[in-house]
C-alpha cells in the first residue's frame, strides 16, 4: 500500500470514529424487568449470588452421574474422553506433572455448580434441574473427599465448602495489567 493510500485509509477510519461520537446515538434498548430476564441470569458468583433454591446429596448425584456423565468422564469420575474429576492434590508444585481437577485446582464450589448447570451434560446442556445440579456437584465434591457422603448440598451449605486450592491464584489484573 502506498503512503498516500495509507494516509487516506487512516483518515477514513478516524472520520468514522468521530461520527459515532458526534451524532446523538439512537436509543433502541427496550426496558426489561429482572423477572423477565431471569431465564438468562444464570451466573453464580463466588459469594453465592445467583445460587438457586434446591438441594441434593452425593448418593442422588451418583445415580445421575452414572446415567449422564460417566460415558465421558469415566466410571466414578476417573476420566475418559473428558477430564477426570478428582485427585491430583499435591501435584501443583514443580517438577511433578500437574493433575488439575475440581479437587486439586478449582478454587470455588460455586464454579462447579455454575459450569454444570450451564454446560453439562455435553450433549444436553441445561437439561438438569437445580436439584440434580446440586446432587451432581455434591457427588463430585464427595469423590474428592471435600464433603462427606452424608452431606446435603444447597445454597447455604455450598458456601461452607472449603476448596483445597482456594488461595492458589495470583491475580494479575489489576496489579499488573
Amino acid at each position, binding site marked *: 500500500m502506498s503512503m498516500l493510500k495509507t494516509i487516506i485509509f487512516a483518515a477514513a477510519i478516524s472520520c468514522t470514529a468521530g461520527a459515532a461520537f458526534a451524532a446523538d446515538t439512537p436509543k433502541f434498548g427496550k426496558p426489561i424487568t429482572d423477572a423477565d430476564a431471569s431465564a438468562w441470569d444464570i451466573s*453464580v458468583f463466588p459469594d453465592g449470588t445467583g445460587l438457586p433454591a434446591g438441594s441434593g446429596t452425593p448418593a442422588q448425584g451418583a445415580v445421575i452421574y452414572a446415567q449422564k456423565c460417566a460415558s465421558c468422564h469415566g466410571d466414578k469420575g476417573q476420566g475418559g474422553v473428558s477430564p477426570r474429576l478428582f485427585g491430583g492434590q499435591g501435584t501443583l508444585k*514443580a517438577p511433578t506433572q500437574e493433575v488439575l481437577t475440581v479437587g486439586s485446582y478449582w478454587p470455588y464450589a460455586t464454579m462447579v455448580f455454575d459450569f454444570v448447570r450451564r454446560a453439562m451434560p455435553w450433549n444436553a446442556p*441445561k437439561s438438569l434441574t437445580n436439584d440434580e445440579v446440586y446432587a451432581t456437584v455434591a457427588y463430585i465434591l464427595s469423590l474428592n473427599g471435600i464433603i462427606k457422603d452424608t452431606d446435603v448440598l444447597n445454597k447455604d451449605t455450598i458456601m461452607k465448602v472449603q476448596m483445597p486450592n482456594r488461595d492458589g*491464584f495470583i491475580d494479575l489484573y489489576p496489579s499488573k*495489567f
Partner: protein
Amino acid sequence: MARSRRTKSGNDVQQVAANGLLDRRALLSTGVLFAGAAAATGVTGIASAAAEPLAVEPWSKSIGVPPPPYATPSPRAQMARTVSDTSRPGTMQARTPHHRLDGMITPAGLHFVVARAGAPDIDPEKHKLLIHGMVKQPLIFTLNDLMRYPMESHIRFIECGGNSAPLWSKTPIQANVQALHGLLSCSEWTGVRLSTLLEEAGVDPRATWMIAEGADGITMQRSIPIAKAMDDAMIVFYQNGEPVMPWNGYPMRLLLPGYEGNMNVKWLRRLKLTDMPVMAINESRQYTLLLDSGKAWRFYYPQEVKSFITRPSPGMQMPSPGYYEISGVAYSGHGRVSKVEVSADGGKSWGLAAMQGPVLPKALTRFRMGWNWNGQPVVLQSRATDEGGNVQPTRYKLIAERGEPRGTPPVIAFPMEHVNCISSWAVDAKGAVSHVYA
C-alpha cells in the same frame, strides 16, 4: 526467481546480520536488492541457464469452470485449517495456515476456532442482547436494533490465550507453523462501540466488572474489567466485510482488541455489570498459568508482543542456496509493533526487517527481510518490539519466570497460556526446515 534477475552493480546492498541477512532498505529497490543478493552469494551459473521451450497447456485450450455463488480458493492452493477430532466431547479446534498466507488479513473461512460445543444455529430474527446488573435501566436489544447504531471498522487480531502452547514442551514439537501458532487470526471487524450501549443503560459508577456471555450450548461467560468495556470494546457483526462466520460468533461477537481470544465472547447474548468477577471455569481453571511454586497466575489479559516467521518455516524444504525473502507476522495486544528484527544465527546478531504498512495497533504487521542463504545450516528467529517498549522474550526468559515445562504434551493440549517467546527455525544443509530450541 531472484537469481535470474542478476544485474550490474553488486555493491549497494549490505549484509546487516550474520549468515546473509540483507539491509531492509534493499526491499525498496528490487534491482539493487537482486544485484546485491547475487553478488553476496556468488551464485551466477544457474541464473543464465536456458529456459525450456514454452508449451500450450490444456487449460489454455478449453472452457473453465463458471463462478459459483460463493467461491473458495483453488483446491490446488491447499487452503485448509487443521481441525481437531470433533467427534469427541471437548474443545473443537481449527488452526489458521499461516505458512500458506501472506499480508495481514486472515480469510474468514480460515479464521481459527476454539469452540467447546460447536457453532450454534442462531436465528438472527430471534437473537437478543441483554444488558443488566448494575445499570440504571436493564435493556434488551434485538439484533436489528443493534445494527442501526453508528458502525466502525477496525483491523484487529484475535489470538487464543493458549496459542503457541506447543512451545511449552520439554523437546521441540516437530509440527508446522499452523500447528504451533495457528490459534491467531486478523480480520477487519465492523460493528458498534460497546460504550454507546452501556451508556444507554446507564452504568452504576460502583460497577467494576462486566460478565459477557454467549448464546451457545455451553453458554460460555467471562469477566471483563469495566475499563476495557468502556475503552475500545465493540460488538461486531461483520468479519472482512461479510457476516461473522458461524464458528466465529454469528450473528455477533464481543471484540476486545488485544485481549486473550476467549474473552472476545462469541454469539454474545448477555452483559451483566457487577462489582466482582464471576470466576467462570474459563478464567479460574482454564486460561490460568501454573507456576513452579504451585501457585497460578489468573486474569492475564493482554496478548503480549510476539512474532514468528511464516516463510521459511518448519516442514518446508528450501530447494537450493541463494536469495529468499524471510517473511512473518508481528503483533502486540498493547498497541503497534515498532520494530521487528530477524536473526540467522540463533539470536547472536540481528538485522532490522521491513514492516509492511499500514502498521495498525493490535493488528498483524507483515515483516519481510531479504536473505542470501549460503547453503550452511542456520537458525532463523524473529523478535518484535511494540510501541510500549515491550520486547518479545526468549523462551529461556519465559521459563525463568514460570518454571520448566513439565512434559511433552500433544499439540492440541494447553500446558501453558500466553506463550509469546521467540520461535527458532533451523535450516539444515539440505534446506529442510525444522523447529528447534535455540
